[in-house]
């Protein structure tokens, strides 16, 4: 009798545990199909590999700090969904006839999240502290070009430059900091680095170190209160763990790898819970050649390599179709993009013809030689970037077909930069560039930018390109600037200092209860404050803090 009771007891306990843990929630498969009506509330949980370091954005260089800061702070201007510059804290702006000064008219009635009014003096303070040599910021470059900055009255701010500077306007998208909380203190040790106060759509509420950062909607936001009530960034250093948390519905939002996007999330249970979105990423991957190398000096060799590499094969095989061929340093949905430049289609024959012109001969063993020296080089790739390493392997195979031996060397990021690229100690690299929203390529292709730690590390020199780069960055008129940029892209395509490989898609999964998400050239976050969860689909109703 006793044993029976014991068994029953255990069984009952187990059943209780089962029910308790499962919460007995029945899921309705069609629930999230209903677009519903915009409603305030719910929480979005995202995962981040790294923990933010400093929430004053000009002091930090990591993406998670900048992400949090982008919800808390505003700049004077911002990009809209089609990458046009529109006002943010500035209502409008005038550019003087000589193109040297910009006068911003600021929004009136904007309040800092602690209730103090926002004025032009905050902008002035932000400018001053950024260019102050005592401030440890990496981002003072653009503001250093300002000759004079003045707050004309509380709501008018004017900057004057020595010469017209095309990226000037968008450089004022930098976060404006609250003067009343910072002036007279040391910004590097200000409490705001862990507890920011901005003008933005979300208010900082809590940071549990190593665990999560929580923001709540700002009910007084000048563009209207965001529908989503809370934002939580969970710190999950391991990407495999993060993906499991997504499948487990514990996080709502995550960037996916091509493999995850195409293969691992394409099943009914996942599609019932998540929508997947894709849009062209602001980056391209390229093979950069050391132009001081005796073979790569010759333009014909570089053009031949562009013909010898099968870009589409890399996109299909490694990105699983989630990318497009790159033809230059911009992507097709940008106004600066020139679609008419010469394309180098995959053609080993053309490649060989060009190499023959350049003085190479193919021996009976199939190896290409110039004056007896075989065509051999090493490409450097950074460790951990599987897409780049695999791309290098495909390129290696294609080049070996025409008699070129390419070795692949995988290096840890800091070693690659400090010991090889900075010392110009490489033959070729396979890397990626972020595509800037403003199409200024001066730092990457101008021949003056070859010093230590500067970015024209391949040693590209073309006097016409130099001239165009300077003209383009000092022309504010868009059609005229576009003319220079088009010519620039033609020259880059002709010269092939890089073999431009591909522009990948950014692929993300977002829980289906979030509505009003529309991918655009600017990505998806541009209308974050308009995202909403219909009342019947709200998941998180608690508004409590996490810390005890």
């Amino acid at each position, binding site marked *: 009798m006793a044993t029976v009771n014991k068994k029953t007891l255990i069984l009952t306990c187990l059943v209780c545990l089962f029910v308790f843990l499962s919460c007995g929630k029945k899921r309705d498969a069609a629930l999230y199909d209903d677009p519903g009506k915009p409603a305030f509330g719910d929480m979005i949980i995202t995962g981040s590999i790294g923990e933010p370091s400093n929430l004053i954005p000009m002091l930090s260089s990591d993406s998670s700090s900048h992400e949090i800061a982008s919800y808390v702070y505003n700049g004077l201007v911002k990009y809209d969904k089609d990458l046009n510059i529109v006002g943010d804290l500035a209502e409008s702006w005038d550019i003087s006839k000589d193109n040297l000064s910009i006068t911003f008219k600021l929004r009136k009635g904007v309040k800092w999240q602690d209730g103090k009014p926002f004025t032009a003096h905050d902008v002035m303070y932000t400018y001053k502290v950024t260019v102050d040599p005592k401030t440890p910021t990496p981002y003072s470059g653009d503001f250093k070009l300002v000759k004079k900055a003045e707050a004309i009255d509380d709501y008018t701010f004017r900057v004057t430059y020595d010469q017209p500077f095309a990226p000037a306007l968008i450089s004022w998208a930098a976060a404006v900091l609250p003067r009343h909380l910072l002036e007279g203190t040391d910004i590097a040790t200000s409490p705001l680095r862990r507890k920011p106060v901005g003008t933005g759509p979300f208010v900082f509420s809590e940071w549990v170190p190593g665990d999560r950062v929580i923001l709540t909607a700002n009910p007084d936001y000048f563009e209207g209160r965001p529908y989503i009530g809370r934002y939580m960034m969970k710190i999950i250093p391991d990407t495999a763990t993060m993906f499991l948390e997504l499948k487990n519905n514990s996080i709502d939002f995550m960037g996916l790898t091509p493999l995850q996007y195409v293969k691992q999330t394409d099943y009914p249970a996942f599609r019932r819970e998540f929508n997947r979105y894709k849009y062209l990423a602001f980056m391209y991957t390229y093979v950069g050649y050391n132009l001081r190398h005796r073979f790569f000096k010759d333009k014909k060799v570089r053009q031949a390599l562009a013909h010898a590499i099968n870009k589409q094969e890399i996109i299909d095989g490694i990105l699983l179709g989630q990318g497009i061929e790159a033809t230059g340093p911009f992507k097709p949905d940008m106004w600066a993009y020139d679609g008419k430049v010469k394309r180098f289609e995959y053609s080993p024959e053309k490649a060989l013809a060009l190499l023959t012109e350049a003085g190479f001969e193919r021996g009976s063993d199939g190896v290409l030689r110039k004056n007896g020296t075989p065509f051999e080089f090493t490409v450097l790739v950074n460790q951990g970037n599987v897409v780049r390493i695999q791309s290098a392997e495909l390129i290696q195979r294609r080049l070996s077909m025409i008699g070129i031996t390419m070795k692949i060397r995988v290096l840890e990021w800091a070693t690659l*930069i400090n010991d090889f690229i900075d010392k110009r100690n490489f033959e070729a690299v396979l890397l990626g560039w972020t595509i800037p929203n403003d199409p200024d390529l001066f730092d990457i292709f101008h021949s003056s930018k070859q010093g230590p730690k500067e970015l024209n590390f391949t040693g590209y020199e073309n006097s016409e390109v130099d001239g165009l780069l300077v003209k383009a960055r000092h022309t504010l008129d868009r059609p005229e600037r576009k003319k220079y940029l088009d010519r620039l892209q033609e020259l880059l395509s002709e010269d092939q200092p890089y073999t431009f490989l591909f522009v990948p898609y950014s692929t993300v999964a977002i829980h289906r209860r979030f509505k009003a998400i529309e991918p655009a050239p600017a990505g998806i976050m541009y209308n974050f404050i308009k995202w909403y969860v219909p009342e019947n689909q709200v998941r998180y109703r608690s508004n409590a803090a996490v810390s005890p």
Partner: protein
Amino acid sequence: MLRYLLKRLFFMIPMVFGITLISFAVIHLVPGEPGMLEAEMNPKVTREARERIRAFYGLDKPLHVQYWTWLKRIVRLDFGTSFATDRRPVIDKIGERLPITIVINLLSMGLIFIFGIPIGIYCANHKDTIMDKLLTSFVFAGYAVPTFWVALLAMIFFGVYLDDLAMKYFGFSLKLLPISGIKSYDYGDMNVFEKIFDISWHLILPVGISAVGSLAGISRYMKNSLLEVLRQEYITTAYAKGLPGSMVIRKHALRNALLPVITILGLSIPGLIGGSVIFESIFSIPGMGQLFYFSVMARDYPTIMGILVIGAFLTLVGNLIADASYAVADPRIRIG
């Protein structure tokens, strides 16, 4: 005994000094510098800005000067300020993360002893039986497979697979164990009991899995040491005077066989600290191991050095306690 302890403590000073010297040299040999890794290859970061940041951190000074500055601070127990852009005192960063790491390590150490010692005893008593072989295979499998892999499998099983099954056959969501983290999203709403339950619930997987990997060591030590003792003549004597088997094991054999196991306690501390780095990253636990991982990735030298010094200190103290308790427990050892 007291003299011995003092002597050992005294000799720990040059040891800690040596450890810091080597660690300092090694982390500075690694290419890359704090605050710069994410700013590399960023067109918006000018060279002049770089120099300014280097000077700000004192990285423009020669290495021995940097070490001397650090050493002068550390002897006053000042761990300095982190090089991460948050510029917080290192001691605060470590302090807020140390408790959870210690709790997890103590719990898993507890589990290892609770399971490892009985397994060892059972295997010694039932040497070469099928059960002995099964248990041995099990603990060795736990030792051999990479723990991060077991951790991922367990996370998939409890977090995703069971949920999918329950959904398919019973039509409701079943989340038996959480995948990562140590607190639920609504932790702030809970009362004390719910909070304790919530944290324990989150700790089951990390603690359980970290224990599985270390069972092999303890159970093998226990088994061999017990077998060794069982061969002694006084055990034969005990059997000969008619004592029951369990009494022989408990009163005569086990007491002596447990001695070497004490040493393992002290020696396992560095392993546990090293393991925390992996565990806390996989399970997203905001502990010292995770901080170490982030600091190394960011080349945050003061934080790395701080954690290394604390780790070295804990290890040395662990060894000392093990040696001392050995002397206390074993009357055959005399240290003067």
